[in-house]
């Protein structure tokens, strides 16, 4: 990468406990009060490293709004400013 260039909105790993349908119930220990929106991003299938993410816009019990996603390949969860 050219020196000094940095990405914005980089995803960061996060710990999520899920329910039966796969929806997030708890994020890094904080309970999820509501799932506001849920959407899918599936792209770049023509390149090595295709993207498959299921995003959730959450309202947490502590009053914060948070966007998280789950990767389709690894199943890992991340949070991201979106």
């Amino acid at each position, binding site marked *: 990468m050219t020196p000094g260039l940095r990405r914005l909105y980089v995803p960061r790993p996060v710990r999520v406990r899920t329910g039966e349908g796969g929806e997030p119930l708890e994020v890094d220990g904080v309970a999820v009060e509501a799932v506001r929106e*849920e*959407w899918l991003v599936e792209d770049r*299938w*023509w390149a090595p490293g295709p993207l498959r993410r299921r995003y959730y816009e959450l309202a947490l019990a502590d009053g914060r709004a948070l966007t998280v996603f789950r990767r389709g390949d690894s199943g890992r969860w991340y949070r991201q400013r979106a």
Partner: protein
Amino acid sequence: MSAPYVELHAHSAFSFLDGASTPTELVAAAAELGYPALALTDHDGLWGSLEFAGACRGLGVRPITGAELTLRSAGGDVHLTLLVESASGYRNLCRLLTAAHAGTRDGPARTATPPAATLGQLEEHAEGLVCLSGCARDGALAGAWERGETAAAGRLGHRLLDAFGRDRFRVELQRPFWRHDRARNRWLTQLAGRLGVPCAATGNVHAHSRRRTHLQDALVAIRRGETLEESEPHRRGNRSSALVSPAAMAARFAEHPEAVAETVCLAERLRFDLTTDLGYRYPEEDDADHTLAELCRHRLIERYQGLPSWADAAARLDRELATIRQLGLSGFFLLHHELLELAREVAAEVRGPASARAVLPPGRGRGSSVSSIVCYLTGLSHIDPVEAGLFAGRFLSEGSTSVPDIDLDFPRDIREALIPRVHRTYGADRSALVAAFPTYRPRGIVRDLGKALGLPPAEIDRVAKTAGFHESREEMGRDVEAAIGAERAVAPRWKALLWLADDALGLPRHASQHSGGMVLATAPLVEVCPIVPAAMAGRQIVQWDKDSCADAGFLKIDLLGLGMLSAVERCVEEVEATRGERLDLSRIPVDDEATFESIRAAETTGVFQIESRAQMQMLPRTQPRDLDDLTVQVALVRPGPIQGGAVHPYIERRKRQREDPSFEVPYEHPLLEPVLAETLGTIVYQEQVIEVAMALAGFTPAEAEGLRRAMSRKRSQAAIREHHRRFVAGAARRGVPEETAERIWRQIQGFSGFGFPKAHSAAFGLLAYQSAWLRVHRGPEFLCSLLNEQPMGFYPPDSLVHEAQRRGIRVAGPDANRSHLLCHVESPPRSVEFVHGGETNSTDAELRVRIGLGYVKGVRAEEMEALVAERQRGGPYGGVAELASRSGVGLASLERLARAGALDAIPLGGATHEDRRRALWGVGAAAAGHATGSGRQLALPLEPPAPPELEPLGEWGELIADYRATGIALGKHPLALLRDGLGPEVLRSTDLERAGDGATVEVAGMIVARQRPETAKGIVFLLLEDERGTVNLIAPPPVYERHRSLIRTAPLLRARGRLERREGTINVLVTSVAPLDVAQLPAVAPAGHSFGRRG
């Protein structure tokens, strides 16, 4: 209905460059997923709706007809989903879609603009339709929310409610898994509540499977002319556009169960069925029977009075008229008669009333119509069916259920003028051309997908150029590797291109007009199928292709332009201009021995329908002796008889018949004898399939017709199986052994409907005979007319000329002081007497064909016409500058003329040099001071000084120059010049006569034609030409694979192989090929014709 959900919003590939699956694929997937019904809602069109409805019925899914309409509103273009509830709704939808397309070709150069209807038009045509408020991004309501225009959305919602009523308007909810789905759907639900209408959930399906959604992404990128990356905001962004099960869809809308249930309610109501409820009637007048009878009787007297066949003809006419009355088809024939009268008017305008061609009828009918005396008398056909022994039973029988199919062939120029004339005469809402849907081909797919995938343009270009006309994915993979190397070929993007191409090949790409099919109707056509303006001015097309039109029972007339007809007409004109003789082709003897001898010897280069390699191979073996034999011959070389296994038996039996007059034709079963006697027990003609089904298995005419139709379309596997069952059962009932019945069924299946009807073949056979007669007896004019009618036929102009030269016909190159724009025949000064219509061989020797100035590549026709006109007005040109200033020809064209040798006879610096290089120098010097490369007029009348001594071109240089300039080498053949360098082991084409069967031989020459017919299992046929003649090469698949690129593209080749002799034909079975490289020649030599699908 047990399914919880029905899909009411789905796009097929007929939403061009948006939907990624064919209607059949969608229906098959829906059936598998358990959908009881499915709606097809393509963009602004019903292109695939009939195909969709047919596929649904075949698989037990109920089809719902509809479309996604683009509405022009104050805020821009929005989408609405319209579904047909009743027949009046369907009529309204057709009119609405027609209105949406109405102004789409009004722009400059008639480029298409996107269709859209106005709100007013929608309101006018709302009855009988159910309206859903549109998709999430662009829908009338949801789209407005996306853009934040909620107030406008509310207003529009009210207007739609007013137009459709509470009963037929629904707010459409979608769940494309985008970020704000929930918010949007909440708002829409609230709006629906305020409007007092239910919501309905839809999927906005664009693909039948998850895998196909990738192609859908690529199509969006292609449509926008962008790469996949660039088009990201406009793509779906995930794979939710694939069709999924009803249960999965219900789960997607778990928060809106009532919207899900509403889809089932709506589907219950939407019972309009396109396959049964279409209301089409063809045009006719009240007194049709009487009018037709009068017309025919009048003509009967004209044609037959005083002839021995009078009584026979009169009796036939009465019988036919009775049948026609009974079938209610009088209006049908009168309509065709009217069309021909119209054509006569048009022909007189196009050709001028005084021309020799005025003697020729304006068009010719073919198809089974040619066997009808009514057709003959009304001018639809030019074969006297009584004379020719053709029986109308096949064309018109009491049990006929479908309207007869009539094709009319016209010379190209007349056809161009006739089509808009028909539109004007019958009215824009009652006549339209049939649509055709060109599909993706390898070359186009590589370019489009390559660009979308962001591959380097140079690589895309290389791969696209090597891709053939139709290829499988493995072949494309090999092309990629060959073009850009193995390392690049495994790059992820190239690999993606290959599997995407696999999915895309064969999908319809856009709509265009069919080559000549025209639909006519009484009730406005526009209520039965939408009509859209075509790319060509004065024309419009229905949204259905010929298969859908046939399914709908439309009256379809094919107005086709036949190059050979044009050529024959030109020949007749040329004969008059050259010899002062008015030929009446309908009066030449039909048994001219010289003509049939040439046909039997396969000297048929340039003769329509019997000039192909396959035909030439067969003629010496089948040895046609009369028009009947020729009729079989024309029909024999088609995929139907070939795949049905008719060819070899027919050839064998002809041979046996010649050798042994007592030879009895073997039939699979005695029941077949009356049907197949004239084709020696083989199935050759299309109607013989019907007749065999009727004779052997007792099919009724309707059943047999159904069988024929099912076989000629790729969509009817289930129907074919059913017919097979019935065939075997019926044959058994007639005492035919099962094994025999199965064998005959396999022949029928192999035939598959790809054959000519007999009357069609008779018409073509007659045309072939007439052409062969002209070739034998008016050789120079015949060659001239073929050259002027290119492109057409099997051979490139260069080959036509070489063959004619070998026969002694003289051909001279373009000459600025002698040529016309077109080729013409030069006659010696008129001190020689001409003989009308008789032996003219002595005159032939003095005639020569002069290549026209229009043949020089790159010159403009108007310029050359001006040159000729000025020469005729003011006398021959005495110098280059004089030529330039009098005629106004620009420098660029002058240079081209010089290189073509057309200025050789023009004096330069006071003398003629007959040297192209010095002429080229002279032209350039006359333009001294002006910028090079411009087409500007040269104003200076001063002749330039004498040119310097330059290296003469030499024979080789002239050859190259000829090929570059006109594509025709008139001097020595390339092989004559190369012969010395080849060595004695390389034989000439004429030497092969002396070689024995099975001998190993080597030949070399130019490749004039290449064929890889689908019926031949990968074998490639090549026609090689050297200075003495032509050689047939046959390359088996392993040889083709080894030398793929050479065989596909090299204009010159050496070939080694085994000689094969059979009854007058010679082939070389190739074992290896090698290039025959001489600098420059491969780059300019004509590439030869390459044929893909055609046999």
